[in-house]
């Protein structure tokens, strides 16, 4: 039996929608399984976060508590990383955090599709973040934003440091997107590989079939680890966004 652990990441048109929706410059645009998952994530998360706090109870239910805690969590994160004037970016960072978090968690459902395991999606998000950082920096400081690349150092060190700062700034969208993408890809590939062990051992017959319980139990443990990683990566994505925004807002001085 030949199980391909990479098969789960294939983007394909959903069942019954084999014809392209529209053509843009000769490229067919399909409604894919990835698009379906993104629509589900967007609808479910926005419905939950609005409906849970709609009644505005004084004593919150579990749902309302979850929604309120997520608001406070993100607000505290932005406040600690960027200070008071970073809070005007709350809607952006909160949307980003919830979207990545829900994509990661919906991807953990067996048989579904992990949107964040596609480099196209994560790079689009990272490019959005860096674009916002650049626009914010130039709007706040004008041309003085370029001082971001000039650290406090003697001039002979600056010859070395300025290229390093520029390169480190330019690699940020790559590292930000690849971190999320590779984490999700690695975790789901590992789950699929261990799933393949279960199938191969189970179909071997005899004592080997009994042994297939071992990788099965391991999958449960890895699943728990992956749930932690799913949250952690969303958190890291959001906090790095905050840190980059902080640099754009305050350059090198601490808030």
């Amino acid at each position, binding site marked *: 039996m030949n199980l391909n652990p990479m098969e789960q990441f294939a983007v394909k048109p959903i069942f019954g929608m084999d014809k392209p929706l529209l053509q843009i410059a000769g490229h067919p645009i399909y409604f894919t399984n990835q698009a379906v998952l993104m629509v589900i994530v967007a609808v479910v998360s926005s419905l939950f976060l609005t409906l849970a706090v709609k009644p505005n109870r004084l004593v919150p239910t579990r749902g309302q508590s979850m929604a309120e805690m997520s608001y406070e969590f993100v607000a505290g994160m932005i406040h600690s*990383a960027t200070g008071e004037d970073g809070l005007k970016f709350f809607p952006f960072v909160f949307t980003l955090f919830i979207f990545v978090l829900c994509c990661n968690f919906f991807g953990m459902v067996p048989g579904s599709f992990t949107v964040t395991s596609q480099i196209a999606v994560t790079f689009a998000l990272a490019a959005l973040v860096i674009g916002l950082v650049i626009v914010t920096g130039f709007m706040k400081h004008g041309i003085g934003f370029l001082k971001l690349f000039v650290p406090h150092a003697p001039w002979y060190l600056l010859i070395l440091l300025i290229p390093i700062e520029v390169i480190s700034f330019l690699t940020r969208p790559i590292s930000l997107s690849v*971190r999320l993408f*590779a984490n999700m*890809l*690695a975790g789901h590939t590992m789950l699929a590989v261990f799933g393949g062990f279960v199938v191969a051992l189970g179909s071997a017959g005899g004592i080997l079939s009994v042994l297939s319980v071992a990788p099965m139990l391991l999958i449960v443990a890895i699943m728990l680890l992956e749930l932690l990683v799913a949250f*952690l*990566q969303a958190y*890291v994505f959001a*906090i*790095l966004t905050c840190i980059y925004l902080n640099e754009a807002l305050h350059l090198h001085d601490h808030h």
Partner: protein
Amino acid sequence: MDLKSAQMIGAGLACIALVGAGIGIGNVFGSYLSGALRNPGAAATQTTNLLLGFALCEATGLFGLVIALLILFAF
């Protein structure tokens, strides 16, 4: 050596990146624990930095995975 077997060897070699990631993650958590046991009062304030350091470290190992995937599927 044909291209296929060279690809396999290269992808395996790319996994050496995990050595650095393992040392790094161990270092992050080890330093956090030793600091937290000396000064438990300050431990809670540093969890953000802990998770950030962990994620930045782990990412370097995963870049190795990306290189392995590039070797396997991009050529």
